[in-house]
């Protein structure tokens, strides 16, 4: 129980630091700490695979993009000008809502009947051949057998989002069938941009 309380304290402090830090880069670092602490709580719950995935996906990929954006925009040098003495309305309302939801969940959890022992059941349903809650086998069974359709739909939605981003932000040259004409179009476009610049 003691490791849990230590980790919980780290989680809360780092989460608070994330939203109160005045430099975006500090928010990123504290969020990194937060993710690491969250992965540790998963480890305490014996959800090894989830812990590792938390690190790989969130810390390794998503948060890295934040660092990238901050580094490229250089917005991290100057602190965000908010004014210390003014509580922004929208975040305050969101925080209040989150607090209510948290308390409600805590009360519901306290009154809920005890769930079956971990070895036979997981929140994803009865465990499969992996037979340990949170193991790779269990995860794979849930993902590819009992929850295949939602998984595939999510994949499709993400795919659409990726294609959309490429369309919106990608190469501006119009589509041309042959390579030679593509080169001509590109050159014409570049010259047009240069002319605009002058």
């Amino acid at each position, binding site marked *: 129980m003691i490791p849990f309380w230590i980790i919980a304290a780290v989680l809360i402090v780092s989460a608070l630091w994330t939203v109160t830090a005045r*430099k975006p*880069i*500090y928010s990123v*670092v504290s969020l*990194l700490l937060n993710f690491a602490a969250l*992965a540790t709580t998963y480890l305490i719950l014996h959800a*090894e*695979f989830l812990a*590792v*995935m938390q*690190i*790989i996906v969130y*810390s*390794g*990929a998503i948060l*890295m993009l934040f*660092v*990238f954006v*901050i*580094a*490229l925009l250089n917005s*991290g*040098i100057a602190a965000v000008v908010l004014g210390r003495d003014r509580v922004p309305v929208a975040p305050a309302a969101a925080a209040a809502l989150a607090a209510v939801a948290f308390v409600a969940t805590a009360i519901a959890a306290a009154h809920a009947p005890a769930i079956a022992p971990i070895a036979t059941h997981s929140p994803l349903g009865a465990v499969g051949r992996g037979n340990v809650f949170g*193991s*790779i086998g269990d995860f794979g069974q849930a993902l590819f057998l009992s929850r295949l359709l939602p998984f595939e739909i999510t994949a499709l939605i993400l795919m659409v989002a990726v294609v959309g981003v490429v369309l919106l932000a990608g190469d501006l040259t119009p589509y041309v069938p042959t390579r030679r004409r593509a080169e001509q179009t590109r050159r014409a476009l570049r010259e047009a941009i240069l002319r605009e610049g002058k």
Partner: protein
Amino acid sequence: MLIVLVKSAILLLVVLTTFAYAMLFERKIMGWMQLRPGPNRVGPWGLLQPAADAAKLILKEDLTPKTADPLIYRLAPFISLLTAFAVYAIVPFGANGDGSPWAIGDVNAGILFLMAISSIGVYGISLGGWASGSKFPLLGAVRGTAQMISYELSMSLSFVGVLMLAGTTSLTGIVNAQERVWFFIPQALGFIIYVITAVAETNRTPFDLVEAETELVGGFHTEYSGLRFGSFFIAEYVNMLTVSCIASLLFLGGWNAPFGLTMIPGILWFVLKVGAFMFFYMWLRATLPRFRYDRLMTFGWKVLLPIATLNLVATAAWVALH
């Protein structure tokens, strides 16, 4: 608890000593390849050179640029160092007769743990380069981050082929699965991809765009001096050692002896394989020029990734049919 602490202390010592002499041998080998003697003044045959280097780094002045972000600037080398060493918590070096591995912790999701830790290692470079508050480190950091993210994909895909053949993610299990045939034979393509991405992941020549001296002064560590620079340096060599260990565990049979030569203990075979891979690294550095940045990215995304995916599909089909 005590045993784990003792094991960790011993391992730390071993890894640090290996780092010191890997650095010396790299300079020696590069010297020989370029027809010069290499370091040979400190101690017999230059063997005390690492100690002299360490003393020099410790005594150097620790400079922080005025434009730097003080907290992140100090934090970044630690992230690099921490992630470089954390990996050794699960790397097995050999096995007892009953199959229990020589490792601090035997984790089931071993290979995934390795990937998770190495994905955090990027932060040392990107945060360090950004926090220096100067243009060369920033350019080096942005390049390094992009490069490491791109090559990590192909690297993970080359792992998956091995995982499918072994049917487990535990490093000990993977080594045990190679008792008859080492995975670099059925996974030849995967092995080649791994070797290339491993060099790119550790930012070594010919993929050392992160610290390209001719254009970026020192890259992400331009502003660092003294022990902070030393931390980055240690992390780089320890990472080299790590990817050599992974190559040996995943593709070269780990501590399994070739041709039934079991009278030589497994740990020696392991050291030999890791050493050979390290030598290959140094050989590359003395031989190859640096890639151009756009070619590096094109190669990573348009050549390596499709080949790695093909390899994955072919392996999956083969495993499914057997």
